[in-house]
């Protein structure tokens, strides 16, 4: 076990972690930030996506010790519900989620994606979300939501 200081959603957190522990495990089991979901635990579904210094990373493949000195943002750090990010708002309005289990990962992928790609086509969005597994929606309404969010962000 190692004592590390993490910066999560803008707050310093000191935690004892195992050398093999992933940031997904640390977030869920030590910091009680359960919005980040564990689905496959081997980097195939994107459900555990969090931001590390603004870039999306897979929480299940990222050792916690590698997060030291980085800024980690989880779904809890995006919005508490009053002021939804346009991606979140559009996912709700467009029916871009059913069971909702993959949704935090979709949000944490789409937000940085739209920062880098402010005017994506439908095919661009498909590519941008190609690491996020959704078993409910058939992706159509997720893609439409992200497209609408891009338009909203571009104002």
């Amino acid at each position, binding site marked *: 076990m190692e004592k590390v200081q993490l910066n999560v959603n803008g707050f310093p957190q000191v935690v004892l972690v195992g050398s093999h522990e992933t940031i997904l495990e640390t977030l869920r089991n030590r910091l009680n930030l359960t919005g980040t979901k564990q689905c496959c635990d081997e980097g195939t579904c994107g459900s555990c996506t969090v931001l590390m210094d603004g870039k999306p990373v897979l929480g299940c493949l990222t050792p916690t010790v590698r997060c030291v000195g980085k800024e980690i943002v989880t779904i809890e750090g995006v919005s508490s519900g009053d002021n939804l990010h346009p991606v*979140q708002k559009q996912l*709700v309005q467009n*029916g871009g989620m059913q069971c909702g289990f993959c949704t935090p990962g979709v949000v944490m992928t789409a937000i940085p994606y739209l920062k880098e790609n402010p005017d994506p086509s439908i095919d661009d969005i498909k590519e941008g979300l190609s690491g996020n597994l959704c*078993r409910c929606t*058939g992706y159509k309404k997720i893609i439409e939501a992200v497209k609408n969010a891009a338009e909203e962000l571009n104002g």
Partner: protein
Amino acid sequence: MSGPIGKPTPYIDGVQKVTGKAMYTDDYRFPNMLYVGLLRSPHAHAHIKHIDTSAAETYPGVAAVTVGTDLPISFGILPISSDENAMAVEKVRYVGEIVAAVAAETMEAAQKGAEKIIVEYDPVRAFIDPGDSLEVCDPAEQIHSHTKGGKNIHKTAELRFNEPEKALEQSPFKRTESFKFAGVTHAFTEPHSTIAIWNGDETLTVISATQVPHYLHRNLSKVLELPMHRVQVKKPALGGGFGGKSDPFAHEMITAYLSMITKRPVKCTFSREEVFINNHGRHPTTIDMSVGCDQDGIITALDTDTIIDGGAYGSFGVVTSYYNGVLLQGPYKIDKLGFRTRRAYTNKSQCGAMRGHGAVNPRYAMEVILDMLAHDAGIDPCDLREKNFLEENTVTVGQLRITSNGVRDCLQAVREKSDWDKLYGKQPYGRGLGIGCGFYISGSALPIIWNRYPQTVVHAKLDFDGRIVMFSGASDIGQGSDTMLAQIASEELGVPMNYVQLEVADTKTTPVDLGSYSSRVTFMVGNAAKMAAEKLRNEMAKAIAKEKDVSADDIVFRDNKIFTEDGAVDISWEDGVETALAGRGAIVESGYYFSPKMGGDFKGSGAGLSPAYSFGAFISDVTVNPSTGSVKVEKIWAAHDCGKALNPLAVEGQIEGSIHMGLGQAVSEDMRYVNGQIVNANFFDYRIPYSVDTPDMDVTIIESNDSEGPYGAKEAGEGPIHPVLPSIGNAIYDAVGIRMMELPITPDKVLAKIQEKG
């Protein structure tokens, strides 16, 4: 409709889900909680000679150890095949079957503790190929001792109406074809998870990722020998089911038992590999089907012989066996029909119910053969289908009562939108269109366990605060049933949706609902919720009418107001609440749903009975690369008759999700086993369509307004998967002239067929 019914309505739990606040089972943690570690069998079929748990018991952090003989009472979703134990007793029947379990202070201690348990096995012959299970074997090799004739056949379902074999012999056109379907699995994103809490009052609370809290409640009571009034099952937010969480599971029994003996909260969450091992997915299936038609393309008869590979235990298998045959009775009129389905026990994890339960594979076979017959008879495949559609308000040969039926409108919609008449058979080599139709039950008319209770009850409660609380046992698994409950109360009482709040899926506080399976929730729970809300409104109207001296029939509830058209009454909702509750306090009204009596009086006549049926027609547009064999589905036009779309946003979502799941089974998904060991228990090797694989989708909702459905509604969750697969298969024929008789349609199979054709 003046309220939200029929309008696209975002889910009421949408904000919770997009902010990560929605609580799924594994997100709950309780003080002093223990974790479960499971020991699973490395053998497909073996006797257990001895289990030594002593090293596990003394392993640091282990609080309790349990083995099969601690919970010897069997369970299962169907009382007629209650053939499973919480942990293997005497023998194991598949690789990965749970043999023993520990509860420990940490997940790591639980896993390591479980590994300390030593089991001695005596392997016997394993049955992996279902064909082997149909033969007589050494009694010592039988998977279950209860199977008949020395074979490993779980169930033979067979019905014959009007000698189809004779009609087939005389048919001008006849096709007899063999099909093979790989097993596929639900692959919901949320792994199975269960938490059990043994309460201070000697009651048990189980929080679980389940589609069927009621049946879990009953089975926990049975296995744990705990009276039903001391069991509570709660379903929190649930990350997808598709039928894969509609059985009571071994790990739920084990977790509950470990909580009982340790008197501490206990949690068990599966890894993704364990989810694959648990399976309960669609049966691997072989079908030999014969269909005939006359010169005009009218279907003369259908006869089919099917083998489904059930795996080691029963699950829903008896129902699956019948569904493979009886759900061929629509959407076409077939008066001479026969089927036999044999469900084989094999030494693999069991198969059960998955979206479109029991009907997806035979639907593929039927629709492909119809396409072949259309070509044989020189009739357009859409025309041939139209000639054969069942009418509305009719009865099928097996006594299925068909009420509303929008299949003709479905076909017409996709035919026009896809430009079928211009393009079919006329596109360049490599590009093609294909049609597929389907129908499905809108709720099983019979409960799984026979009883005299309604199939669902909903309470609507109104108190001084003016909110309406709907109490329902219905399980929202992502399909939006919670939103539907709020929409109905809002519609009936004329208040905004946020005046309606829910208590759902808790077997202690909510009245019984049988669960989210067989596409029953909108129809049954919707009707019960509507009745409860109407009764509440009538009760309010009575009190207001008395006080204002008007007729209760004249009182309107709309736009958050209560009024009469002549202005004699014009009060706010809040004033109406106070008037209605004056001198009596809270009003609680109940609605319920019973299916009407229906069906024939022959054995097996109950299978497939439903108070209504959904219908659909889909056309796929595919590109086939003849040099690689790869198939790309470019676009799917989907038209589905759901009676009335209570929430068009949710209905579209169900249709689009069905296209996704149907596409996966059609082109890539395949549960692969080597010597009984699943070899692709992960999302790298079990290929599910991702966003880049998703075709364009054009969805049309057809509203046939069913006379018995709530506001006319029928199902939309399962019916839309059926046409997807054959529309793809038939489009491949139009593109490159080959018939794909084996799913999934992978490039190697396509290439082989193209080369064979030359």
